[in-house]
């Protein structure tokens, strides 16, 4: 397998413009002759599908939910970064580029990140034009706030519902195209296989989740915008339905999987409170603008927070990282929370929690000001925990939130399977080993609105293809394999539920491939996961049939894939013998507990090639060159 990144030559700030000129075009009258499949309808999928249809391509879009508006981008709370420099505080495209490369701990591709920073400004323009009601100042201009890993205010927001408003903007653009007949939308359809013919991606096989019908859909190019795989941990801030099946099917059809071990554990989530727990809820990073994080200085201190005097509190982020304070990046903040809890200083039941305290901000600004900024988050916290965060500090703990890893793509966002493009969280390209807050929305929309419309045209214009018929043997084979797999899951008729397997996998992953990883633990996980997978296929029980709505069957297919994907994550984490970003190998740390990167051996992307179910996957490397932001030890002190 060859990893050709196709990064354009020339100075970094001119690469994208030069590339846009050099790419081939499809003339306007010919665009309707080309068809594109878009899987997923979140920020990347909806914006991409709408933009491609506006250009004139025939688009089919798929989502597993009942409406494209439900995609989990909707739950992003805090904001979206853009280098507008409206605050006159020293921001620029170059600074956003620099912050993102450094924030990713030097494991992202410079050229992609620079393009992302350039496009960030267009995204805000586009969204305002669509009617996204961003927060504004009294003068009528757009407001900003700060997010982790940055010393400027460049985050645009719509209360605590930024993802919702951006997604609804993209959804409305998509619905407009559906109304015009340019996009055919397939809701409640799940992609279960990729169709590859003569080495190129030509379609997908889906299951209609209401009728159970297995159908194939063919096109000239396929785009996956199916999100991340963080639900491998079972407990996560993801929606319950989020899954890795689409990218895992693509991986097994030849798409390389890059940096699977780069997962983001978000520092501010509501702690676990019971065994029946089905998901974890994020409390936006924006809260760290005004909330201060602390634990008692003394281990085992069980006093109520208001009984602990100021001098006996440890504001550990402010202490360890004075220049960034409570806005230290996510990987660092999460690890610091784990550390204080490991020391026995955690708060709340089970001792797995730290305080996020608004008392000072309320004293300074008044409760109304805090309510205006974070009201919906505080209400949500209260509904879940039955505690009033205006009176008692919030209790928070890290949880699985995002995956920086994903399918490997080149500069054109094309995977190692020609014709298969990957957008948003589903690809690996822009965030390196750690994503900064408010950058996921930026990447999803940059990929969908402003990258794929150009690069897919280039692919189509330079790739003459024959039409594929539904009777093609490869199409029939793909359909048959999907149908057979469903039958196989139903036929096990064991004793354990799908959820019980998923929960067990999550525990293994959290323990051995979570915030702290080490060789012995990863090796143990690599023993446990195949054994669990074996048990799954012998002892799972999936009631009902494959011919109607069957939520157990849907889950079973996804968990079966997670049981394979989790193993690849551990394998990748084992091979990456360094600490960087969210990947913290306990063997590789500085004396003060900071991550120790090894640029000599690991300044590369690890891209895994599937070699067969009974063979170990092959690890390939794409070297990373840092020509603009020089490799330095990342410091937020």
């Amino acid at each position, binding site marked *: 397998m060859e990893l050709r990144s196709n990064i354009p030559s020339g100075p970094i700030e001119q690469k994208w413009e030069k590339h846009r000129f050099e790419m081939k075009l499809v003339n306007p009258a010919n665009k309707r002759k080309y068809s594109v499949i878009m899987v997923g309808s979140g920020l990347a999928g909806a914006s991409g599908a709408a933009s491609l249809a506006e250009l004139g391509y025939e688009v089919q879009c798929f989502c597993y939910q009942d409406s494209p508006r439900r995609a989990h981008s909707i739950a992003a709370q805090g904001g979206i970064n853009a280098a*507008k420099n409206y605050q006159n505080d020293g921001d620029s495209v170059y600074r956003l580029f620099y912050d993102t490369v450094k924030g990713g701990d030097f494991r992202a591709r410079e050229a992609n990140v620079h393009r992302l920073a350039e496009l960030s400004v267009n995204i805000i323009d586009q969204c305002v034009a669509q009617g996204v009601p961003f927060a504004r100042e009294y003068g009528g201009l757009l407001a900003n706030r700060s997010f982790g890993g940055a010393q400027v205010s460049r985050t645009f927001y719509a209360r605590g519902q930024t993802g919702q408003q951006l997604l609804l903007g993209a959804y409305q653009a998509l619905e407009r195209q559906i109304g015009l007949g340019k996009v055919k939308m397939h809701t409640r359809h799940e992609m279960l296989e990729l169709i590859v013919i003569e080495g190129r991606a030509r379609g997908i096989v889906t299951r209609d989740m209401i009728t159970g019908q297995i159908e194939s859909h063919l096109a000239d190019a396929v785009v996956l915008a199916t999100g991340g795989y963080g639900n491998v941990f079972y407990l996560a801030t993801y929606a319950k339905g989020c899954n890795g099946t689409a990218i895992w099917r693509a991986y097994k059809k030849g798409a390389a999987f890059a940096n699977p071990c780069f997962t983001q554990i978000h520092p501010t989530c509501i702690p676990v409170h019971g065994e029946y727990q089905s998901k974890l809820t994020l409390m936006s990073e924006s809260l760290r603008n005004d909330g201060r994080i602390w634990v008692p200085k003394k281990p085992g201190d069980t006093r109520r927070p208001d009984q602990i005097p100021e001098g006996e509190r440890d504001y550990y982020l402010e202490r360890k990282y004075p220049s960034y304070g409570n806005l230290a990046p996510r990987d660092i903040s999460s690890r610091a929370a784990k550390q204080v809890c490991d020391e026995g200083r955690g708060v709340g039941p089970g001792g797995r929690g730290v305080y996020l305290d608004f008392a000072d901000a309320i004293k300074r600004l008044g409760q109304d000001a805090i309510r205006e900024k974070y009201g919906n988050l505080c209400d949500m916290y209260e509904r879940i925990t039955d505690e009033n965060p205006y009176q008692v500090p919030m209790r928070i703990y890290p949880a699985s939130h995002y995956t920086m890893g994903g399918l490997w793509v080149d500069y054109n966002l094309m995977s190692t399977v020609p014709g298969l493009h990957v957008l948003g969280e589903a690809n690996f390209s822009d965030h390196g080993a750690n994503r900064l807050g408010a950058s996921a929305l930026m990447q999803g929309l940059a990929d969908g609105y402003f990258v794929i419309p150009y690069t897919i045209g280039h692919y189509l214009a330079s790739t003459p293809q024959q039409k594929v018929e539904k009777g093609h043997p490869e199409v029939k084979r793909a359909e048959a394999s999907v149908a057979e797999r469903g039958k196989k899951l139903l036929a096990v008729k064991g004793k354990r539920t799908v959820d019980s397997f998923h929960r067990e996998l999550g525990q293994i992953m959290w323990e051995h491939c979570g915030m702290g990883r080490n060789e012995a633990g990863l090796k143990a996980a690599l023993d446990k996961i195949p054994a669990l997978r074996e048990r799954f296929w012998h002892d799972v029980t999936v009631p009902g049939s494959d011919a109607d709505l069957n939520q157990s069957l849907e889950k079973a297919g996804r968990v079966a894939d997670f049981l394979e994907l989790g193993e690849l994550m551990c394998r990748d984490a084992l091979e990456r013998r360094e600490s960087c970003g969210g990947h913290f190998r306990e063997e590789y740390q500085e004396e003060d507990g900071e991550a120790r990167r090894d640029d000599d051996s690991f300044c590369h992307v690890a891209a895994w090639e599937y070699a067969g179910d009974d063979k170990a996957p092959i690890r390939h490397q794409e070297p990373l060159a840092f020509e603009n932001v020089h490799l330095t030890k990342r410091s937020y002190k």
Partner: protein
Amino acid sequence: MNLKLHVWRQQGEKDRGRFVTYEARDVSRDMSFLEMLDVVNEGLIQAGQEPIAFDHDCREGICGMCGMVINGRAHGPRKATTACQLHMRSFEDGEEITIEPWRAAAFPVIKDLVVDRGPLDRIIAAGGFISAPTGSAPDANAIPIPKQKADLAMDAAACIGCGACIAACPNASAMLFVSAKISQLGLLPQGQPERDLRARKMVAQMDAEGFGTCTNHGECEAACPKEIRLEFIARMNRDFIKASLADRGESKRSEGAG
């Protein structure tokens, strides 16, 4: 605590459906309502029965996918709270709870508590947008928008499209949902060029989908998990009447923007 659940079970659109009673034992007060149903379902699966089908996804009250009528109220007893954010501390030990799908002619039942809310997407597709093709936008700060207007637009934009307003309305009217989008876009300067057309097209689609009309019961506002206000319906009516009058004086050749 222990509860008795009366749950609507229906195999498909053609099945007549019926209530089935289940016991939910050892329920924790800190569980969410959907987690309580998860536990019941795990029990059903282990007993070899089909679990209760219900829609849900984000479980943090924003995707709008979950929705069920709990003891006669859309999303249950707690104000401004979706079913997924409702916690069992809102119930008493020994309580009997009735759980039904959204009931509306325009929302056929797919299975158990799962209904088809496709009509809401079709209303948006008819006109619930601002036509701003990618790449055509001016600078985001080129048009200042008074904060009060932007805030009011955001209040309307908070709608999650769950359909509770329709389930709660005795007429199964979708006017709160439609008015929220018409108000959001009509309040913003970017939404002005298509304002009349939008009102006409969305209302026409709403009628075509078989939703009832508004007779000012106010049940929609009471049930809305995002507290979308009735005043938006007044706004929509104003826009619609104005648009209908304006329609008579417009060139017929200008149609087709949507």
